[in-house]
């Protein structure tokens, strides 16, 4: 019965006509993921999605580092909505979990305190001369992939099955705290049984790892990573998750939030360098993917066009299990096949051989 509890938390996800709101962290560390998302939604699924050069950061990292006041970020959010209104769209497609939390928190505040919404409208007009309509629908970009998961599954070039054993690949899913912990009804499956990523894994043939620290924070903690002196907090919380998931021998981790994907990748490198501990097979790390990368691999996209060479933990063990036909020598080539050198080796990539 518990397994189906996610069905109690359903949310409306718009089917078409999306206004894309990019993520500072995703485009910084996973630019191929945002490109893949636009390709999947626009070309594979034939939906209308608008990538507007005029929108900016939501300033969420500044807000959760407490240097940007709530009144300020609500007005930046209002400006994003004004851009969306002017472009003729009503459905926000948000590429970042921090931003998603900020948008939902802002809309909730406006619902409960109409005087605050009125003040924000006044401030936005004073600052920019712009006005806005509130969105009809706010979905995280992963909600949109989840919404279309069966259609993506029908187009799959690769199922999430280990081609050497025939067994479903074991995926750890990490949904990111601000997806559903702030407003559980805004997340598919709510806060207890989030299904947004698990649903993708299952629809594409894989199995989901349930492990004790599944809901624990990745350890970002905003100021606890951004300031060098505090990073022990961040790595310690990630390590708690790795220690908890490792006995289940996951084939991959997939993350909802771009920050989580980056930390779960980079802290594996750090822990290996500091302690010599690795959590994946054969002395390597566990490959970490964004959900766009996972969908892209299922659809048969080239891993280097997806940007998987930008990860610290090698993804090749997973590509081999999936049966992806890739050119290992092309990993670090740039446009026109130009070679610009490659990264130094690291313990997390060396393996036990």
């Amino acid at each position, binding site marked *: 019965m518990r397994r189906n509890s996610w069905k109690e938390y359903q949310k409306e996800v718009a089917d078409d006509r999306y206004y894309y709101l*990019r993520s*500072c*962290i995703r*485009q*910084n560390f996973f*630019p*191929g993921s*945002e*490109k893949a998302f636009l390709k999947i939604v626009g070309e594979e699924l034939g939906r209308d999605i608008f990538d507007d*050069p*005029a929108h*900016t*950061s939501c*300033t969420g990292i*500044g807000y959760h*580092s*407490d*240097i*940007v006041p*709530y*009144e*300020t970020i609500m*007005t*930046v959010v209002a*400006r994003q909505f004004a851009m969306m209104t002017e472009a003729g769209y009503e459905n926000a497609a948000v590429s970042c979990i921090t931003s998603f939390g900020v948008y939902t928190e802002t809309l909730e505040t406006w619902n*409960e*305190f109409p005087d*605050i919404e009125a003040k924000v409208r006044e*401030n936005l007009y004073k*600052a*920019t001369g*712009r006005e806005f309509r509130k969105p009809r629908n706010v979905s995280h970009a992963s909600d949109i992939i989840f919404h279309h998961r069966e259609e993506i599954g029908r187009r799959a070039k690769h199922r999430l099955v280990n081609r050497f054993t025939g067994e479903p690949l074991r995926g750890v899913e990490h949904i990111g*705290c*601000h997806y559903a*912990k*702030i407003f559980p009804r805004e997340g598919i499956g709510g806060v207890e049984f989030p299904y947004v990523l698990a649903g993708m894994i299952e629809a594409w043939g894989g199995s989901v790892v349930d492990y004790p620290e599944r*809901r624990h924070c990745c*350890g*970002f*903690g*905003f100021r*606890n990573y*951004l300031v*060098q*002196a*505090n*990073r022990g*907090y961040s790595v310690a*919380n990630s390590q708690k998750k790795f220690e908890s998931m490792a006995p289940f021998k996951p084939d991959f981790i997939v993350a909802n939030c771009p920050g989580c994907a980056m930390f779960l990748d*980079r802290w594996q490198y*750090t822990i290996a360098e500091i302690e010599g501990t690795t959590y994946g097979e054969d002395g390597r790390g566990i490959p970490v993917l964004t959900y766009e990368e996972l969908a892209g691999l299922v659809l048969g996209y080239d891993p280097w066009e997806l*940007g998987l060479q*930008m990860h*610290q933990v090698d993804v090749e063990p997973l590509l081999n299990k999936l049966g992806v036909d890739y050119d290992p020598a092309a990993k670090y080539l*740039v*446009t026109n096949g130009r070679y*610009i050198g490659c*990264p*130094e080796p*690291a313990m997390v990539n060396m393996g036990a051989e």
Partner: protein
Amino acid sequence: MGKYYDMLMEDVRMREGLKACMNCGVCTAVCPAAEFYNYDPRQIVSTVQTQDDDAIEALLRSETIWYCGECMSCRPRCPRGNTPGYVIQALRNLSQKLGFFTESEKGRQQFALKKMIGEHILNTGYCVTPRMVLPERHQEQGPVWKWIHEHDKEVYTMFNPTYMNEGPGAMRRIADDSLQEIRRIFEVTGGMEMFDAIERYSDKKARELGFDGADEKYLMYTYTENNNCHH
């Protein structure tokens, strides 16, 4: 009611985040910061609830309010519908307005955050850009990031030909008129006032500590100093 409590209640997040705490401690049980630091969100909420001016001022000057990672894991767990994370946000906001944040090592880090994230938002329209994530300040990013950082133009243009130029796509350059609007929003809504307060109080504290004001040296001090007495 105490004056600090009244000031806190002007923040809508306090009205949303603190109803009546029964001290059950569930928030502390799930808190990633409580696992790592000598930190107890239950105790903070309990103190604020007393409305006692001396006790709240001590909090505003303390290390304690700066440990929270704002993950909001506490929010869905509280049986009374409180959000200790929101209470922390309100306390930090007030601590900066009153200048108390410079009295703690963790609080002084707000200067580094303002310089690195805050000014970056105003200058680029992003919280983070590739050139900003310096490998020497981010050893944990590893050799792949170092390779990306050294070849950022070659790497990012594979995904977006308008990298750091105007147009759509990942890490595009945000146009000056959009940046002007963001700056105006900060001016109109108190964002710039907050930045100025952080600068002003940090400069005063920097001089007290023997620096020549809130300069690059003080910035690196706030970014790296750790007395290891937080656990």
